[in-house]
């Protein structure tokens, strides 16, 4: 018996040695949404046919800790459908993170129940009271929710002065563009309100796709201007769109505004993805005004000078040069556009050099730069889904529901498509839109929450064992805005310097929350962490242990 046990043990040893660390994939996603309790669908538009462009864009998701219990919660924006009875109109959903791998619907309790053609969401503590607030944009009136700190929210839209009738509002971001310590607000708009439901399929030249009549637009439809609100510091906002100069650019079907200090001058700038029109890059003039330099900076168009569909925006430093890069997702028969920051105020379309030009079959939306395997390099996660459900009746080889994509960052500015090896949840096909990532279960690796139209959301967990070490930073401003939005971090691991900024929203219509996740690879600590605050303050910490969430206060340091 004893001899047999030794033989068995030896055999097992051989087996385990064969499958040693390094042979197992370090990215392997499985969908745990059902087990987690995310069982209610996001309703958005018709399932088999969509008559109007309004029915196509979908919604976003925010992952943020609304009750400050240390565990990020999930907020899903819900949409609507044409001709729904009032009683059938679905509500937005807030799921409380129970801490045991499950989530509980607390929407009603939190007073966040609201119906309508929801679009995007963004988070930020606009009144600096220590509780993260929430904005939800709509086709129609936006809703600003003040977090009361007791597990509930209050609709303060009217009081705040951010209601702007007659807009198809799209993406949003809180940011402190004037660095006065109060979070301002940018809301992109997609189309003129009436255009959203005005044109019948096939009724014009922009209403057909490969011979098939489909919803019209956006080409040929009327734009509407993006809106910039300045925080007055008293719970109200002022519309400074015209004064700021952002309305000088008029031909943008705006989707996603993301904030970034692209030139590292300490002032936050703004990139807006624009559908079928040149993207915008507003350089902060530091005077409360902005100049659109998208064309000159090289982010308005692709390398062939062509306008692209431009939906979601991933923001991050993928090549570890300290400067923020952008990846914009596009229509099918096109590639995403990777804009590498040249560190001189311009960008270069590096899609092909980075080997991201091989897949043209996807119509993509949410996208994030995230270190999925925690090796210290930002990988790429993209979700997709066609615009026209009618495509499933068309004999073309595309489909309405599409698989996800994972690209592993190999270093040297190159990615590798590892979608086929990244687990069953990546190959699963859905009509996806919003995407956000956060460490929802506190194990240091990032989960992904995905909005799927007319379906339950996906909650993807990376089950791979062989991931690198990690560290999570949670910043809190005191002179700067409380959420630390705009704070820039440079984290040194070994010889590499990673960088990131706290931002209110990105991807498509979504928010990755306010914490910053860094992979440490084989290292157990960050050699150096430098924080540059919006106020101008700068902090440096050395030899910070990993495998934990580190709270950094603007004046008090690590707590």
């Amino acid at each position, binding site marked *: 018996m004893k001899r047999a046990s030794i033989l068995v043990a030896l055999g097992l040893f051989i087996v385990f040695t064969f499958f040693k660390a390094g042979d197992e994939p370090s990215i392997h996603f499985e969908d745990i949404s059902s087990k987690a309790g995310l069982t209610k669908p996001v309703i958005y538009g018709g399932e088999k046919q969509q008559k109007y462009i309004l029915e196509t864009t979908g919604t976003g998701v925010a992952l943020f800790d609304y009750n400050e219990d240390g565990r990020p919660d999930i907020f899903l924006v819900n949409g609507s459908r044409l001709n729904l009875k009032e009683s059938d109109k679905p509500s937005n959903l807030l799921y409380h993170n129970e801490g045991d791998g499950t989530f509980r619907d607390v929407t009603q309790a939190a007073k966040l129940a609201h119906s309508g053609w929801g679009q995007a969401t963004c988070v930020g503590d606009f009144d600096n009271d220590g509780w993260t607030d929430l904005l939800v944009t709509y086709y129609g009136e936006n809703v600003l929710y003040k977090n009361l700190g007791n597990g509930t929210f209050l609709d303060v839209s009217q009081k705040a002065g951010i209601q702007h009738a007659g807009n198809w509002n799209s993406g949003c971001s809180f940011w402190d563009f004037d660095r006065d310590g109060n979070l301002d607000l940018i809301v992109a708009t997609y189309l003129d309100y009436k255009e959203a439901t005005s044109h019948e399929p096939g009724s014009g*030249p922009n209403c*057909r796709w*490969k*011979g*098939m009549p489909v919803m019209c637009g956006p*080409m040929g439809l009327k734009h509407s201007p993006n809106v910039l609100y300045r925080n007055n510091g008293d719970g109200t906002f002022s519309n400074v769109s015209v004064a700021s100069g952002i309305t000088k650019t008029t031909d943008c079907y705006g989707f996603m505004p993301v904030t970034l200090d692209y030139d590292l001058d300490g002032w936050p700038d703004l990139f807006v993805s624009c559908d*079928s029109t*040149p993207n915008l890059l507003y350089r902060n003039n530091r005077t409360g005004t902005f100049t659109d330099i998208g*064309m*000159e900076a*090289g982010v308005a*168009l692709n*390398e*062939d*000078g*062509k*306008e692209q569909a431009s939906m979601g925006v991933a923001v991050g430093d993928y090549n570890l040069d300290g400067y923020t890069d952008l990846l914009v997702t596009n229509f099918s*028969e096109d*590639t995403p556009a990777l804009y590498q920051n040249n560190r001189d105020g*311009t960008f*270069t379309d590096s899609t*092909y*050099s*980075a*080997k991201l*030009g*091989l*897949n*043209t*079959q996807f119509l993509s939306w949410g996208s994030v730069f995230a270190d999925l395997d925690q090796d210290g390099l930002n990988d790429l996660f993209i979700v997709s889904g066609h615009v026209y459900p009618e495509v499933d009746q*068309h*004999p*073309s*080889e*595309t489909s309405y529901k599409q698989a996800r994509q994972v690209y592993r960052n190999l270093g040297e500015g*190159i990615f590798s498509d590892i979608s086929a090896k990244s687990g069953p949840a990546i190959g699963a096909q859905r009509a996806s839109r919003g995407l956000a990532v956060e460490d929802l279960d506190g194990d240091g690796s990032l989960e992904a929450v995905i909005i799927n139209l007319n379906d339950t959301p996906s909650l993807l967990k990376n089950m791979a064992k062989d991931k690198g070490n990690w560290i999570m930073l949670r910043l809190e401003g005191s002179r700067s805005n409380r959420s630390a939005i705009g704070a820039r971090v440079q984290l040194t691991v070994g010889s590499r310097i990673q960088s990131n900024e706290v931002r209110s929203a990105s991807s498509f219509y979504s928010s990755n929350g306010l914490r910053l996740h860094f992979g440490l690879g084989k290292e157990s600590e960050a050699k150096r962490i430098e924080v540059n605050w919006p106020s101008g303050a700068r902090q440096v910490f050395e030899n910070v242990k990993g495998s934990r969430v580190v709270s950094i206060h603007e004046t008090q340091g690590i707590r």
Partner: protein
Amino acid sequence: MKSSSPSSLENFLPRGVAAEGSRGGAAVSFACRAPRILQFVGAFLLFQALLSGQSNFLTTAQTYLQQGRVDDARKVLLEMLKENSGHAQGNALLGQIAFSREEFQQAVAYFRKSQTVIAGNPLMRVNFAEALLETGATDLAKRELAQLPPTAAIAQFEAGLLWARHGDFLSAEQHFLKAKAGYPKPQVIHYNLALAQYSAGKFAECSATLDEARRKGLRSGDILNLLGQSYSESGKNAEAASVLRQAIRLYPKDERNYVSLVKMLIEDDAAAEGLEFINMGLGLLPKSPPLLLQRAYLLMSLGRNREAETDYRRVVEMDKASVTARIGLAFSLIQSQRQTEAITLLEELTKSHPGDYFPYYLLGELYTRQGLEDQSMAKLTKAASLQPRIAAIHSNLGKLYLKKNKLSLAIQELETATQLDPSDTTGFYQLSIAYRRMGEKQKSEEAVAQVRRLNEMERELGTSRFLTRKLKNFRNSFNTTSN
């Protein structure tokens, strides 16, 4: 892909409507013409010789020519010229012989010495003009043909064909117009006149000529097809479609009409309707390569890449030499995300057709997409050496040079591109970047402004029409295609 442009040389005599002795193609009919002329000229010269008393040499030469003994006839004539080097008839016959052998320098020399004969022989004057053209003396050729009697209808017609072959369609038109009243085959003259007008971009005149032909009861597949294309070029799409549909009804086995109609329907974003017509044509002509190729293209535009691949493979099987089909197959593989297979196919094409620029160009694009910039550059450089007048090759090369920060080389390529094609958005956009890096702010802004204009044009026209317009402009400035 090769387009079935009506200005392709082989279209210059309509198939099935033969000039005397011709087998359809212009080049063939022209070659057939020479022996007849020899015979005709020979008889004339013999008569003249009888008058002049120098009958023996000419008689002998004439006999030899009738027997097909051209070398012997030539020897006799050369012998005759030893005694009288300026003998007009002898020189004329020797000129004809040299001409029929395509010894054009010689032909010119002999014809120069036979002006008195040429003066009375319009067809010989045409041959003289052709010999002059072949030796580069275009102005002299023009002068010769200007001397043709306006009523010499056949000679005027042949002169028109000559200019058409050499790409001077306006001159061709002038001669065809003169031939029109007296040429014995009205269908032929109307068609060729219209074709010259079409090729010269005079679409209204082309349509008018063909409408006149129809009113006279002259009708053929060629006429209807050309009329359809002419209407289309004039923007009269409804009339064009109507004519082409009529052509299809009347001549259901003429594949050109299906191809022309479907091209229009694609431009009008009516690809599904186009597919119905192509399938109709393939029902009658299931092994027609042009129809299969057109259907494959249609299918790709509808996103049905696998089906397109099947059609392309069928054409490749039928015609192993078809570069168009293999390039189309490569496109369908690319669309199906099978770039590696496309690369293999194209690399094979570069070996089997080393003088064809297009596979190299396409490989350049593919290697760029794969991030293999050095390989891309090698292929594009080769493509440019084979065909320097394609803007896209230069703009892609410029892009690569710019990525390597080789500014002056980049600018050189990009400026070439935009000069070749003023609608090359890539070229202008990359130029704006290059100029900015050089510190040439104003030039950069001008280039950006051009990009904005082109993008606006594309938005207004729609991408299909914008690309069609680019192709037409390119075709008008450059008639040679890849295959």
